[in-house]
């Protein structure tokens, strides 16, 4: 271990990509925090923090450029939400911004259309839309920050086969999109007749589908041959006894998890109490115990299955200090919001539309916590995927 704090800090700043699970934990934490509130100040702060972290810490892989789409989707959601209020709601009170005639309901208690556009309706739409948009941006951040393939590769050994199938599926899907484009382009080369009708359409579809599917099959076979020739699945032999144990454990866990979830959600089992019986924390739903038992069985089953896979990883992603910082900062952000929601100042999280929303010091702390990964994690290692466009900057 290096000596001084300064050495350790410098070492921690060496560019690398974080464990994908850390980014997912962080982004789900912020998303959960955003879903707890309609306070526009807090939501805007959260979105700003997430955008800042993404622009500072995302790599240059193809998935990284998807963040812009999530931002556009969020804006779209806000707009749709407001329009929806204008179209269906209206007239709940507040100043009238735009007087519109109201269409009478077609049946008693049916939908009312249009009507006066009031400030309340628009503001409520804005708040709702912002909340939804913020959640989308937070989840989109995980997609932009974590390499989806590395996330799949980080699955436990027992799920290795499933992970490999998914990785290949992702690859082949991208190639499929590629070959659709190529064949469609090639179609332009053969003059298409000006005919119409079912037969014509049938012919056009066939002209694209046949070459694309042939191409996809060829590629899949080539990929399979390449993987096989490079030793894929070589160590997959397991004994019969081991398979039996693994199977039993996994089936048991599925049954327990299913029953546990049912019990918890439906409160079908009587609540257990223990001393002191009147304290709230002493109440325990036995469904929860069943769920825990199911999880334990699943863990044992995965471990048993994973032991059969003799496979090593080049540069495995490990949960190190930066990863834990990221994960915990996301969870802490959520915890702070949750604490406020349980506390006396819960009203700040769901402000009305008539008063200017306010923030408490604790609520300012939440986005600040979520910002920590931007400062405390190492910068991403670049792959040069965008090298020809090195001049590109900003959020593109």
């Amino acid at each position, binding site marked *: 271990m290096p000596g001084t704090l300064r050495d350790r800090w410098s070492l921690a700043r060496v560019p690398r990509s974080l464990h994908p699970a850390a980014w997912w934990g962080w982004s789900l934490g912020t998303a959960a925090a955003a879903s707890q509130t309609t306070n526009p100040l807090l939501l805007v702060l959260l979105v700003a923090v997430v955008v800042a972290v993404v622009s500072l810490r995302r790599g240059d892989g193809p998935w990284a450029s998807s963040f812009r789409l999530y931002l556009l989707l969020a804006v779209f959601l806000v707009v749709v939400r407001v329009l929806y209020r204008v179209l269906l709601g209206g007239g709940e009170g507040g100043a009238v911004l735009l007087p519109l005639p109201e269409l009478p309901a077609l049946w008693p208690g049916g939908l009312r259309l249009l009507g006066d556009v009031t400030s309340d309706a628009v503001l409520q739409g804005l708040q709702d839309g912002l909340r939804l948009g913020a959640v989308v941006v937070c989840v989109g951040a995980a997609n932009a920050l974590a390499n989806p393939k590395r996330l799949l590769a980080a699955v436990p050994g027992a799920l290795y086969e499933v992970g490999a199938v998914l990785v290949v599926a992702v690859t082949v899907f991208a190639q499929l999109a590629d070959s659709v484009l190529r064949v469609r382009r090639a179609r*332009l080369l053969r003059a298409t007749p000006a005919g119409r009708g079912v037969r014509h359409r049938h012919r056009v579809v066939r002209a694209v589908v046949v070459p694309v599917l*042939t191409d996809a099959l060829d590629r899949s076979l080539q990929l399979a041959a390449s993987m096989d*020739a*490079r030793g894929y699945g070589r160590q997959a032999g397991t004994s019969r006894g081991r398979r039996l144990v693994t199977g039993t454990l996994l089936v048991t866990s599925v049954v327990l998890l299913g029953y546990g979830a049912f019990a918890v959600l439906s409160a079908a089992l009587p609540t257990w109490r223990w001393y002191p019986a009147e304290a709230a924390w002493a109440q325990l739903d036995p469904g929860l115990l069943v769920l825990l038992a199911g999880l334990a069985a699943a863990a044992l089953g995965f471990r048993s299955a994973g032991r059969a896979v003799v496979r090593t990883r*080049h540069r495995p992603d490990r949960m190190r200090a930066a990863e834990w910082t990221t994960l915990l900062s996301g969870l802490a952000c959520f915890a702070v919001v949750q604490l406020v929601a349980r506390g006396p100042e819960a009203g700040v999280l769901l402000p009305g539309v008539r008063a200017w929303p306010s923030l408490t010091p604790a609520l300012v702390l939440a986005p600040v916590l979520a910002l920590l990964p931007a400062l405390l994690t190492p910068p991403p290692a670049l792959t040069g995927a965008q090298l020809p466009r090195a001049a590109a900057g900003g959020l593109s």
Partner: protein
Amino acid sequence: MLSIQHLTVRYPGAERDTLSDVCLELPEGELALVVGRTGSGKSTLLGSVNNLVPRFTAGRRVGRILLDGADVTLASPRELADRVGRVGQDPLAGFVTDTVEEELAYGMEQLGVAPERMRVRVEETLDLLGIAHLRSRALTTLSGGEQQRVAIGSVLTLQPRLLVLDEPTSALDPVAAEEVVALLRRLVHDLGTTVLVAEHRVERVVEACDRVVAVLPDGRVRDGAPADLLPEAGSVPPVLELGRRLGWAPVPLHVRDARRRAAGLRSRLGPPPADPPLPAPVADQGLDARGVLVRHGRQVAVAGVDLAVPRGQVCALVGRNGSGKSSLLWALHGAGPRQAGTVRVDGRPGRGQVALVPQTPADLLYLETVAEECADADEQAGLPAGSTLAALAELVPDVDPGQHPRDLSEGQKLALVLALQLAGSPPVVLLDEPTRGLDAAAKATLTRQVAELARRGHVVVLASHDVEFVARTCSRVVVLADGEVVGDGPVRDVLADSPLLATQVARVMSPLRYLTVAELLTAAGSPS
């Protein structure tokens, strides 16, 4: 090292054996070049070495395969992963991961190599291939030559004693191909790896190879010295052809040997007879493109190119992979993007008067039989029934109209698509990498077809990496680099003086600017 004994392969539904009674002994540390016509069974032979044939292809296989004396006839490809490394023609199709390092490590991960050893071996392989600076690059952003080197590296990390490569340079430009061949030579010389490589462009590999394995049309296989066997297999590199015609013994294989032998010839011969000057472009006649600009996102693929080609001229576009040749062809046709510029044919807008045969001609084929495809083209062009089929028969006489287009050989597919595209009799014909996957005989046929098109007054523009083909086929060469025209002139001026684009004969005869064997033989007064 490798011993193949009495190997016979027949695919289901085939009428004859693809390989019949093949016996082959390959000693350690040799580079063997597998040659043969398209469809002769080269790939079958290579696939048999690590049992991908018949496991991935179906079919019946008889015989034995021995590696270092161990019988591996029944082993699965994955069991042979650390003994036989296999690299295919299209590196992208075989990549499993995203980045260079991950791809190099993939095989070792499957075999459970300890992480510390894995790191060391990845480093060693990066250095061996000379791609250490690319280590974290995404695979799709690499050039063709780099991708092929990564593909070779990804099997080298398992340290196989035998490397099997199926047409590793066929999609590469001359420079990238030389990189790959140099790498193979280094593996053989420094590491003692045994290499079995199939290649159509024999001239690229023949200088590095120790022996030639010829797959004959009847499925038999013979091996021996390159000079003896190449003529029999129908693929003779120009240097070898020259030596044979001029009666040099021993027949030279390398440009260097041939250059020494040709010292007398060079002093005796004068410069080649002057070519007829290129016809000046006539206004409102032929292809006239001005200021063509193509951008893909922020990347400029074609940066304002002017190109005027009169009728009857065959013009070649050359340049490294990614220099904008394909983008230019697609923009000239009108089907691809074009942000600026005009394309006029005979003074009128070019749309509908240009035919383009793309790099993968099979993309255009979707019907069940050759006859149906031709009838479709007739209908769309408003021609009387049967005219396209007749045109096809003129191009390649031996195509059965009832055949499925996918079952045709590469050369036949190309001819079919060419016939389909010519149905409307467009004045301009564009060909994108037409020699890909063609053997020597098919290339000779294509040269004749192109000459016939030009004679009928078509404008022909073709993009190609194959300088020998360009020298035989074209009268003018345009060199593209980074989307700009950096050279344009008669084929002799452009090819003979370039260190990288020169044909083998040009290298042998430099500074005399002969390009092809035929014209040299004529000048030397030798019966050809």
